[in-house]
Structure formats: structure tokens, C-alpha cells
């Protein structure tokens, strides 16, 4: 009894780096939505902070011609995901809507998948996540609170996808473009993140990720993991030379 939808969805994301200001709204939104444990000072000290989406900041140049480049990075939901075949227990697999799904209950914590994720997008629960009792009130009932010893990562807010699809089924229609958005996309004030069904050629995401978009690229494309997240290049009119344009 596979959960089947009668339509053909492929959930995809577009990230327009030129818009991102590094404001972190997406990050906190994701943590609130997905019951991500609190990243305490200790956790940061241990280099074990969990941020399903994170803003990577890269320096370029030297003072005074210095630039900070922001990369919003989340699981790329690779079409050919290296994290999947290495999982011995099928705790991570590809579903029929283009998502790289993580089944917390199956995971035994080998961390194999994390090693094989070239994007460093998987997070391990090194400790039992704890919240002060009162803060547990905030936990999203649609999202499992993960146990210690298992892997987690961005799910494209699958609970929101499911909710939207269920509503659509009840109302006997297809999910409308922009009807819902993952928490990070919803939050992002600059419109850097766009989400939708890329199988629908009229969706905004499909329009933006067209192969002829002049700024289109994908992360580490040469690895052939076929990421389901498409990036649009940063524009810098004062760039010295048109560097960084190779697909490698």
C-alpha cells in the first residue's frame, strides 16, 4: 500500500543567489518547522550544529575589495543520490516525487550516507535531543522528534507537501503552484528560494530552472548526482573577469 498520488509531481527548488542577503530567516524557519534540536553553545563547540538549511559564507578578495558570497545550502534531493545506495537498511531512499526521503525509524546510525553526501547536508543526532519541558510545546506534531543515533536532513518539508496533497485530494483537484511552500521558502524575505512542481512546465520553479536560463547551474554538477535544487548565479557587475564560470 504505497502512498500513491494520482499525479506526477517532482518537487524542486530554485535558489537565486543574487537575491540572498544571508539573513538567516530560512534557517530559523526550518528549525521551528522541523523540530530541529536547539544548537547550544556546546553543540557548536563540538561542530555538531544541525541546520538543515544553512547559509555558507565565502570570502572573496581582500580588504577593501572584499566580498562575502552567500550560499543557502540544503539537501539537494539528488536524482542520483550518493547517500542512498550506501544505506544498508533503506533508511534513505528516493521516492516517486523526486524527494530523497529519510526514514528515521529505519536508520541505525552508520553515518555512511553522511560520508557519501558530497554536499555535507546530512546531520547526525549525536545526543538525545532535549528541550526544556515548556519549550516542547512548540514542537510541530507533524514532524517526528528524532532520537539519538540517527541521521536527519532537509526533507523539503515533506509534511507540508503531504498536507497540501491531501487537501488537494479532498478537494478533488491538483496542488496549485504556490499553494504551499516549505518553511524556508515561505520565510525567505528576498524571494531567493522558490519551490514547486518542476514537472508542471507552467510552475514558477520550472520556469526558473529551465536549462536555457543564463544563470542556471547546479552544485558540483560534475559529480553527476543530478541535484534537484537549481542555483542561479550571483551577479557581480564589478567582477574583474568572468571567472568561476566553468561547470566544474
Amino acid at each position, binding site marked *: *500500500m*504505497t*502512498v500513491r498520488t494520482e499525479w506526477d509531481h517532482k518537487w524542486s527548488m530554485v535558489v537565486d543567489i*543574487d*537575491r540572498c*542577503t*544571508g*539573513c*538567516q*530567516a530560512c534557517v*530559523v*524557519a526550518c*528549525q*521551528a518547522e522541523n523540530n530541529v534540536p*536547539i*544548537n547550544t*553553545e556546546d553543540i*557548536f563547540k563540538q561542530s555538531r*550544529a544541525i*541546520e538543515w538549511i544553512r*547559509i*555558507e*559564507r565565502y*570570502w*572573496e578578495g581582500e*580588504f*577593501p575589495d572584499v566580498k562575502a*558570497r*552567500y*550560499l543557502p545550502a540544503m539537501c539537494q534531493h539528488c536524482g542520483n543520490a550518493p547517500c542512498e545506495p550506501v544505506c544498508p537498511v*533503506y533508511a534513505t531512499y528516493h521516492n516517486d516525487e523526486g524527494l530523497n526521503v529519510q*526514514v528515521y*525509524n529505519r536508520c541505525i546510525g552508520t553515518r555512511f550516507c553522511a560520508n557519501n553526501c558530497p554536499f555535507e547536508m546530512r546531520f547526525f543526532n549525536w545526543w538525545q535531543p532535549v528541550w526544556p519541558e*515548556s*519549550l516542547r510545546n*512548540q514542537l510541530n506534531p*507533524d*514532524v517526528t522528534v528524532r532520537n539519538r543515533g540517527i541521521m536527519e536532513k532537509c*526533507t523539503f518539508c515533506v509534511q507540508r507537501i*503531504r498536507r497540501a496533497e491531501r487537501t488537494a485530494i479532498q478537494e478533488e483537484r491538483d496542488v496549485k503552484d504556490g499553494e504551499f511552500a516549505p*518553511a524556508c521558502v*515561505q*520565510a525567505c*524575505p*528576498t*524571494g531567493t528560494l522558490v519551490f514547486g512542481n518542476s514537472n508542471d512546465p507552467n510552475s514558477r520553479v520550472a520556469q526558473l530552472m529551465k536549462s536555457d*536560463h*543564463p*544563470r542556471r547551474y547546479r552544485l558540483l554538477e560534475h559529480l553527476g548526482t543530478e541535484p534537484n535544487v537549481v542555483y*542561479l*548565479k*550571483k*551577479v*557581480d*557587475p*564589478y*567582477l574583474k573577469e568572468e571567472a*568561476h564560470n*566553468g561547470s*566544474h
Partner: protein
Amino acid sequence: MDLTRRRFLQLSGVGALGAIVFNGCSIPETELEIQSPVLIPEDVVAGGESWYASLCRQCPSVEGVLVRVVEGRAKKVEGNPEYPLNLGKHSARCEAALQELYHPDRLQQPFRRDGATGQNKPITWDEGLNELVTRLKALRDAGQASRVLVITDPLRGHLGKVTQLFAAAYGAQHLAFEPMERVVLRQAIKDVYGQDRLPHFDIGNSAYVLSFGADFLGTWVSPVSHSVAYGEFRQGEGRGRGLLVQVEPRFSMTAASADRWLPVRPGTEGLLALALAREIIAEGLADPDAARALTDGRGIAALDAYGLERVADDTGLTTYFGKERAVQLIQEVAHDFATKRPSLALGGDTAAAHTNGLFNLRAIYALNYLVGSVGAKGGVIFNPPSPIDDVPDTASGAPLSRWQEVAERLQRGEFDVVITRGVNLVHGLPGALQFQEALKKADLIVSFASVPDDTTAIADLVLSEHVALEAWGDDIPDPAPGYQTVGFQQPVVRPLYDSRAFGDVLLAIAPEIGDDLGAALPWNTMQDVVKEGAQRLFALNRGWAKATAPFDAFWVRVLGGGGWWDTTAISAQKAPGASKAPAEPVRPSFAGDASSDAFYLLPFRSHALLEGRNAHLPWLQASPDPTTTGVWQTWVEINQKEAERLEIREGDLVELVSPAGAIEVIVYPTPAAAPDVLSVPMGQGHASYGRYAKKRGANPFQVIAPQKDETGALAWAATRVVIRKTEKRTRMIKLEGLVEARQMEESPVIQVTRGEEGS
């Protein structure tokens, strides 16, 4: 799944084959079989949810939010897509309203603090209010009502009205406190544009934004609304890509997003603005009327003091870029600003926080006249007055001069009762004021708080207040989005603890203090007050929620929609036109060591904690600073080469010493800092503010010297400090890994294009 014989054979066949040949290239048939029993919990959605519209109170912008409530518990805060300011978007701070609501250290009932033992004794609301009323009554009866001081955060909307009415009717002093007030900004807007309300900066329609000091994408004025516009400005459909130039001595988040960053010397922003004006006029690109007004009809000779080369030197650009390039840069900016229209100049934050802050801002805002951007699309758009006339629609903290005065009066024992609400004076005023000691001179300090902070810690009577998600309220945004807007705040959950709303308490005690007070405040609850405001909007019979049905239908609509607004109700006011530029520049002066060992200290609002009001919220403590990615700590950003010169490394603990005091911070060398500047995030250094903020990091207000601008406002960027090394080391805690993140040349993860393709 019924297992037919055929299927069994299929399965075993595939299974055996799969075991022999590692079928890694494609998803084997069997995987679909395997998938079926493994239903991940997220596949099953259960439970209903409700979304309530309300207002976000995590920062002074006050934007519209929707709160998700499941089983009576608030679960998620998101931007209200209808709300004109933020259009469905929100900031990192906003989400953390939940953590305020559920904060483990929230006050669950009122407390009385025993002055002798310092012990907190839980009391009932009745006991607490009794004491307060008795005290206030006694003072008033003795004709000493003015010995009562009410200090709140800047309050707009009906809560502001109630508070003002209360203070006025009682005869108490009412002051608003904000650590980084907008006094200078308001004065400059008033002086240059003749506006009482802050204007709307139309970034989204602008082609060129020139920002002086204002971290408008991070924390300045209305960051989410700016960011929404910024997205459009960058890559909006059907428009070219806007250019952003940031003139700021610090590498703020906005500087990081800018196409060009001009790190001028602190306090010279106005100088540069006038040099640009001179250049624009000289090139003949300026609006003639504005040029004439600015130069008093004398042509650019009137601006001789702002010659290109001189300003290039004075602003320090020569030092960083070399003379030739510095001059070229200024010319380029002037040219682009004048030609890439509509263009917009705005300024604030550090540009305003100097002894010459007003000079700087006036010069900056005058630029908009030269390019015809005042009152025009893509420029500065004026805001109409509030649709409800007798509620405060602008609110700003009192300037430093007032606080100095208050501190002195407190010291002289001129106040008996001090009531504070939503302000942390002890943390947010420059340490040199010794405000804590002054406050203690009062007989009774009453503090309304939901999570006890440094000021609550010295209060005698602590009254547990609702958090925003539990309380009624409304807001007249300032700045508004260019048209009349009123936001409505409704409780989205039942109060968790024995707490009350500040407004409700004022309304409740007013009649008890005196009948005249009761008459001045004739409402029972804030809900009534807000509802009455809504009634007045209903009476206007316009705006999106306009309803012909009875008021109740209107009420449901504005509550459900999160507010009332009328896009046609725009400002009719005209700008007075440019006025004469000062012939001679006003130069900044700095407190502290003037030697070359000293650095300019640029404290800045943390993008998440702001000046410290959000420091108790763990999500925000853990939210990486956009440029350093630092968390949970207070660090000092120092130019890498300077750090090398001083032989300090990342993680070293150093003391920053100013005449006002010293703080211990962690060194973070960065390529993005001017050599003579140190910047330190605000927000930490609380003696008490719940478990997540307590005794963490340092408070830069401790070293900020109480320098003032001519408006009397705190010139918080006008202090110079020296670095004193300590032998201590720790680890700079940040999200960035252990290696300075720079892209690998042959495989950059962020690809950059010059964008000639037209996108």
C-alpha cells in the same frame, strides 16, 4: 499486498539476481516493494491546524504574522501574506516569538523582591496590584504624582494611547526607551523633508540605492520590508538589476550584499554625500532647482569645502584604494547615482550615531532632491498620517540627554516610583550613566516582564506580563508602506501562566487610583480599546476590509486579515525642497584615546538579538551572524592584517578599553574590516535574562562613551578604544568550519557572473 505465486517467483528471481549482480545503477524493482511497508511518519498527516493573524513584536518594525495553532498550542509563526509591510515574509527573529511564549524561565506569576534578602517571593496579582495602587494613590493624594516615572518601550497604537492617557491623567512622567533610538533620523527627515512620520523607501522600484551606514537589510528600520523590496530590486521580473552601493565603515550584512562597499572613516558619511552632490551638480546631472537651492544659487563654489580629492582623503578612501582610484570611485558613484534613475539615497545607523550625526543625515537625504527622487516612485515616498487621529503613530526612544537628566534626578531622589515595561535600562544605557545605581534610589521599582532581565532583577515588584501571542493590541506602522495601515494583534493562545497584559493592568488600576483616571480610561480591557479603534476604522468606510454588514463582520475581517489598510490613502504632503548645504563640514569628535593605537569602536545590532532584547531566545542565540557566522558569544571583528600586526589570533580574549569602561571579547580576524575599525555585536552581556542569555558575552554599552549629537541623541559610534591583550584563549564559536571559508579556485561552489546576459 497479496503474495501470489507468480509474484513470489518474480521477487525471488529479482532478489537472487540482485544479490549476484550489484544492481547499483537503477532502482531495482524490489525497492518499490521495500518502500511500501516503510511508511515514514511524515507520510501520515494527522490533526487539524488553525492559523491566526496577529502582529510580531520581536523588533520595533512590528509586522503582520500568521500563527499556526494546533491543539491550543502555538506551533509556528510566519509572515502574513496580506500584511503590506512584510507581504508574507519574516525575519529570523519573528519565529522565536514561540520561544518567548514557551520560555522555560518565564515569569509564571508576580513576585515581590525583598530588598533586604534579595529573595523573590511569589505573590498574587491582587497583592501586587494592591501595593502598586496604594503607593500610586498615596503619592497622588500627596500631590507628588510627578515623582512617578513610567518607562516603556516606544509604544504606537492604542497601547501607546492608553499609556499616555494614564501617565497624563495621573500626572506621571512617561518616557520611552530604545537603546538605539531614531531621534537623529526623525530630526533629519523632519529637517530635510518636513515629515513627522518616517517615509517609505521605495527600494523595490529603485534602480540604484546608495546607502550610508544604514544596515537596512539587517536591522535598520524595517528590514523585512526592505528585504522583500531588495529581492525585487535585484532580480524582479520585468526590470533591470538594481545596483546597491553601501557607504559604511563596517562590513554589515547590507555591505556584504552591496555591489560596492565604500568603507569610509566613521563620521565622514555626510562629507562624502556632499562631495557626491558637488560632483553631480558639477557634471550638470542634478535637478536644477534642487542644485540651486542646495548651493544657495552660488553654483558649486558653495560646495568648495567638499572637493573630490579632499573628501577622498578625509573619508580615508585614499588610504584604502589609493588616491586615483578613490577619486574615480567617488566620481563613478556620483555619476551612477545621478544617471541610473530612479535612484535613492538613505542613511542611518552609524552615519547617524556620531556627534555630527544630524549633519551627516541631512546631507545624505538632501541627495534625493538632486535626482528628483523625493516623493517619487523608486525614491522616498512620504507616509500619510494615521487614520485614527489620537493614537501615537510615531514613537521613538528619548535621546541620551533625557536619560542623563533622568539619571541625575533619580540620583537626587526626585522619583519615588519607577514603572518599567518592555525595557532593559540597565543593559541598554551606556554604562557611564550608572543608571542601575540611580534606579536603586527610587523607593519602588515596578517591572512588567515576561522573562526577567537585568532591570527586572533590581525591581521590587515584578509583574508577570503576557507575551505578544497572548495579548491584544494594534499598531500604526512607522514607517508605513506609503499608505494608511493599521495592524491588529490578537491573542492566539490562552495565556499559559498567571500573567496579564500591561494595558489591561493600567486600565484595571486606573479607576482604583482615582475616579478621574477611571474617566480618562473608560475601557475595561485592551480588547475593548482595540475594538473601539476598529470601530473608528469601520466608520471610515474604506480600505480593504470595508464592510457594509454590521461592525462584527468588519471586526472578523480585520482580525482574520491581520489589519486594515487602504492603498489609496497616500500622503498629500509636499516636500519643502532642498535647503542650503552647510558651507563648512561638521566634523565628528570621538571620545577616548586619539593615538594611532586606538581603533574606532563600531558596535552593531546583532541581526538576531538586536541590542539584546532577543538574547533570551535560543534559536536567535544560535543563529549565525551573517558575516562572521558567530553565535552565542561576543566577539570583536578586526582586520586580519591588523590582527597579525598585533599578534592576536582568532579565539584570543582581548579587552577593549575606552574612557567609559572595558569589555572582554573574543578576537575574530576578518578580511572584511577596515584597519582602524573594530566592530562588536550587541546583544550579550546580560546579568540575568533567562538561562540562555545569562552571563554570556559582553555588553558594548559598557564601553560606549556618552557622546551626543546636537539632538541630544546617543552618538554610539563616537568612541575610540584600545586593545588590551589578555593571556586567555577560547574558541570562537561559529558555524563556519575550522578553516577560513574561501572557495577553491577550480571548483567554486558559488558561481558568479558579470551578468551581461541581461539577467
